[in-house]
């Protein structure tokens, strides 16, 4: 667990001053990390690949029935007999709402030299935000409760929200409040908890015409289950516990269940035309960011 998240999690109570100091201490690294990560993604042409409102030239097309006369580009039309209409590329900004699971289960790491899942998830979320803001999109964090906005100030707001601690349960529940219609959504979580809220959130998002990406962040230990002997497993918050006499025997069945969980998530996302991927905290954050970026590109 890195210093940043730890200090964030341990700050409780209304001690504004110490909290703000902790915030000042942790936010710049997170933001800097996110910006450094974001800078590795080459910003390609981020147009909408369709005509619409915007500044960039898109195409000339012959005037069709129903087009207003003021739309005619006279300069182009003067070169021929047909009236052409100059279309601009549609550059209306997208709204992207990011949900980062801040439950206690995300605070797990199997190795103290490895970042927690939560750290990685927040880093990816903020890096994605940086990228989107640079692309002129409106970004919001579902936990802020405000509609997505654009601009660097929003980045600061997001970073602040990501580094502030909140009392949360053992497992995260996707928050879809303030999810605008036809917007985009990114869910980052370990999806280890109950699937019902996730399915409900997906259904709600699909209802609103929202498309997006779902990134499952897992620790390598959650994939390998390297335990043996008599063990009592407890969830991070302590609400769930399971005792076994031979942990080694459970490995195959656990892995089966994990695969089944991933399968369910994949199926769920495919139904809603979302993207799904699993990221491991020992892997490179850059790869995960690239995938997220591609996934949001494909949403259009």
């Amino acid at each position, binding site marked *: 667990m890195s210093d940043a998240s730890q200090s964030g999690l341990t700050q409780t109570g209304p001690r504004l001053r110490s909290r703000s100091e902790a915030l000042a201490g942790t936010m710049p690294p997170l933001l800097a990390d996110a910006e450094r990560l974001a800078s590795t993604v080459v910003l390609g042409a981020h147009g909408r690949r369709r005509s619409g409102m915007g500044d960039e030239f898109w195409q000339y097309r012959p005037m069709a029935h129903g087009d207003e006369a003021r739309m005619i580009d006279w300069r182009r039309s003067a070169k021929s007999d047909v009236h052409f209409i100059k279309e601009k590329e549609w550059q209306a900004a997208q709204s992207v709402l990011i949900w980062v699971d801040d439950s206690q289960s995300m605070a797990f790491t199997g190795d103290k030299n490895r970042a927690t899942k939560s750290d990685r998830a927040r880093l990816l979320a903020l890096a994605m935000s940086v990228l989107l803001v640079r692309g002129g999109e409106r970004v919001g964090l579902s936990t802020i409760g405000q509609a997505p906005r654009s601009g660097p100030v929003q980045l600061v707001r997001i970073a602040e929200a990501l580094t502030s601690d909140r009392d949360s349960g053992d497992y995260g529940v996707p928050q879809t409040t303030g999810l605008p219609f036809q917007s985009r959504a990114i869910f980052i979580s370990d999806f280890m908890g109950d699937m019902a809220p996730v399915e409900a959130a997906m259904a709600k998002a699909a209802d609103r015409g929202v498309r997006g990406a779902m990134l499952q962040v897992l620790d390598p230990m959650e994939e390998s289950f390297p335990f043996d002997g008599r063990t*009592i*497993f*407890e969830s991070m918050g302590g609400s769930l516990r399971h005792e076994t006499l031979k942990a080694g*025997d459970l490995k195959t069945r656990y892995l089966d269940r994990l695969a089944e969980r991933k399968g369910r998530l994949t199926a769920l996302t495919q139904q809603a035309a979302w993207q799904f991927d699993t990221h491991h905290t020992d892997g490179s954050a850059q790869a995960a960011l690239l995938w997220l970026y591609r996934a949001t590109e494909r949403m259009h």
Partner: protein
Amino acid sequence: MFMLGPIGFTAPLLLLALIALPILWLILRAIPPAPIRRRFPGVALLLGLTDDESQTDRTPWWLLLLRMLAAALIILGFAGPVLNPQVERDGTGPLLIVMDGTWADARDWPRRLDRVEGLLDEASRAGRTVAVIRLTDLPAGDLPFQAAESWSSRLNNLTPYPWEPDTDTVTAWAEALDGNFETFWMSDGLNRDHRDPVLSALEARGTVTVFESPRPVLALRPARFEDGVVKLTAIRAVPGVERAVTVTARGLDPSGVERALATAEMTFEADATEAELDLSLPPELRNRVTRFELTGIRSAGAVTLTDDALKRREVAMIAGTSDREGLELLSPLHYLRQALVPTADIIDGTLGDVLLANPDAIIFADVANVTETEQDALLDWLDQGGLLLRFAGPRLAASDVSRREEDPLMPIRLREGGRTVGGAMSWGEPKALQPFAEDSPFYGLGIPEEVAVTAQVMAQPGPELSERVIAALVDGTPLVTRKRIGDGQVILFHVTANAEWSSLPLSGLYVSMLERMAISTRPSNPTAEELQGTTWTPQEVLDGFGTARDAGTLPGVAGEDLAGGQLGPDLAPGLYAGEDRSIAVNVARDDTTLSPTSWPARIVVEGLALARETVLKGYALTFALMLLAVDMIASLFLSGRLRGPRGGIAAVLALFLLMPQGADAQDQDDALALSATSEVVLAHVVTGDGRLDDLAFAGLTGLSETLRRRTSIEPAEPLAVNLETDELAFFPFLYWPISEAQPIPSSDAYAKLNRYLRSGGMILFDTRDANVGRFGSGTPEGRKLQQLARPLDVPALEPIPSDHVLTRTFYLLQDFPGRYASRDVWVEAAPADAEQVEGMPFRNLNDGVTPVVIGGNDWASAWAVDRTGGAMFPVGRGYAGERQREIANRFGVNLIMHVLTGNYKSDQVHVPALLDRLGQ
């Protein structure tokens, strides 16, 4: 006390707890190992999964066994086990402890004393009175019964004697005892005539218990010289097992130190009581041997002293006439050779050659004249104890040797001619010999009747003649005369060495006379008759342990006692000296045999072994703890904690608990050695005064910096050296500031320092007091320096001369200031023969780096720099002060150059360049 074999328990009731072990087994079996708690988000996926089998809920049997064992050990430990617990010996009434006190006791005397002490302890606890006696040293009068404690304190003064008790005396003493007492008899294990009567006499007074050591008794018979080898025989009392013993020949080496000259091994066959060894030694070595001993056995019986019997005399024989071929029997040396060959080593050669061999005796057979050089050499040799034996003959009779005045190599003056008696042309009968006078060395020898003298040379009468005659004819004419020269003597036989003038060489008397004159070696065992009438003074005597001691003022012993007497207080074994020979009296004689004791069956015979109480509680509990530690690791392993993510740490911790520590010091030493040797490092001695140590460090830092900037020496960071713990050999140079408070190093540290100084190290002593006192004056630091340097191996010192190599190793310097500018700097004094050659500016002092430089200029303060490189202390005032600091730095550079390059700059090769620089 409850006993189980040799182990007793002080609290045996606790052993009942062992019954509970099976119950414990059942309980432990039922309890599975404690689970590990793990935080794991994936637990949500695990919910509802059940274990296939419940295997690990039972502790494995071997772990159970381990715990059972630990529990059992703890119970046993607290039950107080004691190995060989002391069992009290009961008894009342007076107690007599009889020790044989012979040489055979000596081999394990301390154990005997321990045993006696144990018996005394018991007696003192039982309140009994005790008498301790040795049969070799019987108490006069009644038995000295006293409190046991008073004997305990005297016990260590009891020593064994090198002789055996006298049968008659001991028997008489035992029969004269009265009263009732119990007897403990510490037997030496050898059977003797007095055993039975004394035993029955003691049994009449009370019960008798015998203590005897099962260790074998060994003795060494006197060494014999036969057929060119030394024959040694070791004997033992009890045959049985094959046993090898080592024999050491001891004697003085050429430098006069006693050492083992030879060792050899002899082996007792399994059923033999004797072991023989033939030891072939070179004559030179053989003559040096003073004693043989059985190695590792401390007893007078295992030592045999050697006397002249082993020593073979070296005798040189020189004949006046050259041998005539074929006329063997007429050769003047024939009879001498016959008599001497079996018992002496004969040297042939010219007089000059044999004198070089330093023989014990030289025999002149009818030799008249010797050259002056040879005479001088002979006289020297005589002075040192040589024996010159001359025989008369036709040549001597015809010469004018010792006629007018006495020849130095003749005992007397001779008359012209000589005489012939009993021949065809003369009157009278051949003359027989007079019995030898009492002061003659031949006194006691019988005179055979057939010995007759027909011709002889005649002695010139004189005042000294009578005292020089040691044998005479019946008519009173001298036959053998003797004169002492220094430690040696000249003996003249007035007859020939062959049978020409007398029948003496044909008789046994001839050989006996040669023996008496110590020319030939005597048979090893002189008989009482042979020694009749002689008195022998002890030179050294053996004690019971076989250690030779100076005899001191012991009285002399009559010869007949020496030959056959029994050893006792009057005749201790040792080396006895007579007039010109010595005889060894040994504990074991040629006919000594040893036989083991055979006690009647009714007598209780105990060993000497004194079993020590050993309390086993600690061992049992320690072992139990170790088992529990093993159990800890095993449990960790079983529960998977040795394999999980933090298993490595747990395993390492567990191992650390079990493993002894202590690799640290070694690593530290290595680190110091590496840092000190990978680069040149200046070092200062830790004085214990923190401020001073910092100053010294800063000073050396400054000097190192100066060196790096100005010269090709690039020292690393200076080091502080602790004289007690650190190795000094790595450092070419030590700076030792003197403070009044520093402790005196230990003697080990001084040994290290002296080694350092001898092997080329240099120490700069700085008393830092030049501002208040001159060198050698009584400042506190000066006194401390004297105190510190006293055990040091410091050579003679002198104030640094103006042509010392320190003045020119790098810079040309005349002064050596530090923070203070005193001229008192002392270095090793130049050799006395160093002279200044005309035209040379300095002497040729080509040897040696001075091991010490001593001064009081507080150089470290002048050199010291702080972390930013600025000077730490002011020196002098203004520009002159800076100049002084500069010179101080230059002195430092010169000093280190001197240390590292030695006297290189002293080499005259550099003179032209230096002269050039000096502008001359």
